[in-house]
């Protein structure tokens, strides 16, 4: 065979592969996943398997709440909100301070008050950021908004990490400082042992709250007028402008909802770990959640949920084998999935009109 014949036959095979029906790709990915899970059970035992599964679902829930916000914001203004992880962090800190106050004054049911309050306040901050930093760049090149988002993220992290003694009044009341802060035990921890697997009431709470919020979100998006408007703006901003939809309001509301979910995740995260390491704690969860959103297809809400649980579970399993694995597995999975499904697991490409 000449070189040309060979490369054209390879090309034909690649083209043919691209035309494989979707179900074969899903089947392939599922088969590989099941294979690895079976391997794990073989090596580590069924008990460890279920334990890690439970942990993974918990982690996936934390990621899911953040990823939903990322995906909603991307869906509506095509912006990767790098500051999202930092708003997650902000929610955690707000709930810490309020929690301390409520515990000191012996309020009943401090957790739910803290949760709602932090969601609300962080959402306000998020909407303010949108108005100040993102709105002016709405019709400018997308890269400018991205860099601005980066700037907002860096600013939030580093400003809040300043030590209060170095900061002049009145700002020193706001900064959190770079050291770790213990998080109040808003809920008495109870561990249950089911078949040798340790399940925490907090773990259950996280999953339950995540499911409730996800259902609420689906309801809002699918069944309300606002949700319909959000989907319309996500689909075609300019057409909505011409239809008399107030896109500013819709975008603000989207931000508000997405960021409140991140704040909820922050509160739950802080509750689980019992302490807040530093104002930089949002970077890695934010990044992983973002990868999860891309994995599921960015802009796609069910995709963000799916991607997050895939991420959470695989990360937990991988970390239990070797901490280095856990660190890199997220990225490897992402690359593998994107090679097979370039738009993410549930994502769809919109074709550019030529």
């Amino acid at each position, binding site marked *: 065979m000449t070189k040309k014949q060979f490369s054209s036959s390879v090309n034909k095979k690649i083209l043919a592969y691209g035309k494989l029906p979707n179900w074969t790709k899903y089947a392939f990915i599922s088969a590989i996943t099941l294979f690895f899970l079976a391997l794990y059970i073989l090596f580590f035992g069924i008990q460890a398997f279920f334990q890690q599964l439970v942990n993974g679902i918990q982690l996936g829930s934390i990621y899911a709440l953040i990823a939903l916000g990322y995906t909603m914001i991307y869906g509506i203004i095509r912006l990767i909100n790098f500051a999202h992880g930092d708003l997650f962090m902000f929610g955690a800190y707000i709930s810490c301070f309020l929690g301390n106050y409520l515990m000191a004054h012996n309020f009943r049911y401090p957790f739910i008050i803290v949760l709602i309050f932090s969601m609300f306040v962080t959402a306000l901050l998020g909407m303010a950021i949108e108005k100040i930093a993102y709105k002016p760049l709405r019709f400018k090149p997308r890269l400018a908004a991205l860099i*601005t988002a980066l700037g907002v*993220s*860096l600013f939030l992290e580093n400003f809040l990490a300043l030590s209060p003694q170095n900061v002049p009044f009145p700002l020193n009341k706001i900064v959190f400082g770079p050291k770790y802060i213990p998080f109040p035990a808003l809920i008495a921890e109870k561990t249950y042992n089911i078949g040798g697997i340790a399940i925490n009431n907090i773990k259950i709470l996280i999953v339950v709250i995540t499911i409730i919020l996800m259902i609420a979100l689906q309801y809002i998006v699918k069944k309300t007028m606002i949700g319909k408007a959000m989907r319309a703006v996500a689909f075609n901003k300019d057409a909505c402008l011409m239809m008399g939809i107030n896109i500013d309001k819709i975008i603000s509301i989207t931000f508000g909802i997405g960021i409140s979910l991140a704040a909820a995740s922050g509160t739950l995260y802080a509750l689980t770990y019992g302490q807040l390491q530093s104002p930089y704690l949002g970077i890695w969860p934010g*990044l992983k959640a973002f990868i999860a959103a891309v994995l599921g297809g*960015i802009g796609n809400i069910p995709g963000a949920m799916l991607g997050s649980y895939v991420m959470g579970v695989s990360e937990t399993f991988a970390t239990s084998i070797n901490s*280095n694995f856990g660190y*890199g597995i997220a990225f490897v999975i992402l690359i593998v999935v994107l090679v097979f499904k370039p738009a993410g697991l549930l994502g769809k490409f919109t074709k550019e009109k030529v």
Partner: protein
Amino acid sequence: MKIIKNIFNLIKGYYKFILITALIYLLFQIFNGSIPIAPRLLTRYYMQIIMFALINIIMTVSLNLINGFTGQFSIGHAGFMCIGAYTSAYFTTILFKAAEMAYFPQLALFIFSLIMGGLMAAFAGYLIGLPTLKLRGDYLAIVTLAFGEVIRSIVRSSDEIAAFLNQIGLVKFSETIAKISGPRGLSTIPNLSKFWLVYLITILSVIIMRNFIYSTHGRACLSIRENDVAAETMGIDTTRYKIIAFSLSAFFAGVGGGLFAHVLRFIHPNNFSFIKSIDYLIFLYAGGMGSITGSILAATGLTILPEFLRMINFQQWRMVVYPLLLIILMLRKPSGIFGNREFSFLIPKRKEAS
């Protein structure tokens, strides 16, 4: 004979440029104390800072190749730097003990190691380019980010890789890999990055990249940025040129990494996290995508500026003020300080028939 004539023409054409760069070099050496006609203002510490600035110039201009000139969106540049750093350190510290060599063999080994670092990074760029070129902008960004992190993971797992190699019988190779000692960092790297060498390599790198841009191959890359569908229909193999841009950019990032390793003399995967990639993205963006001049000035300025801030005891505010400035810059002038303009001496003259 022809080569000599070519070189002579080259020098004749560039005499102004050569003069200016030689002058700047002389100035540095004067204030460094090597030529004792002025007080020694630049201590070893400052000279090191200047070398970092030079390395950052190489990194930023090479990032500009992909992001600015070819219009892609790559945010994993530190990954290439990591590959280059570890590869070149491998040759000078692990395989051969460069510190114990005489001057000329040492220099030759160093240059060889830098080229190897660049080639390994370029190979990685090629690998990354292949599957990702089907991906749309945001997905490409994520994959490049993920790739950078995967590289770090691999370096971190050097002990495990060494153990594996030992098991399959490659004992000698395994020992050298073990010395990379990922999570503990690689130390005792010899100080081979002499100022004149770093300066020279920086200038050569910038010239090579600039010559590439102002040739037909560079224009092919530009056309991809401007309108890739149109470029494809004008006979330009966009896939091939994206890969070329990636590989070339990665090569220089690898060289920069190698130089970096031998200035810092200790490298650790944490030096090359995505936070570092973001640093270069900020330099690039502030300077202006598509402007080599902008990249040079921004890289220099933003590397040296923290030192001034340190002098006036302002350093913890650096990462608070920087992002704020970045945000303001994006809101005012989204195309960066220089946009895509250049100093005139960087743009070659075109002989036009009018």
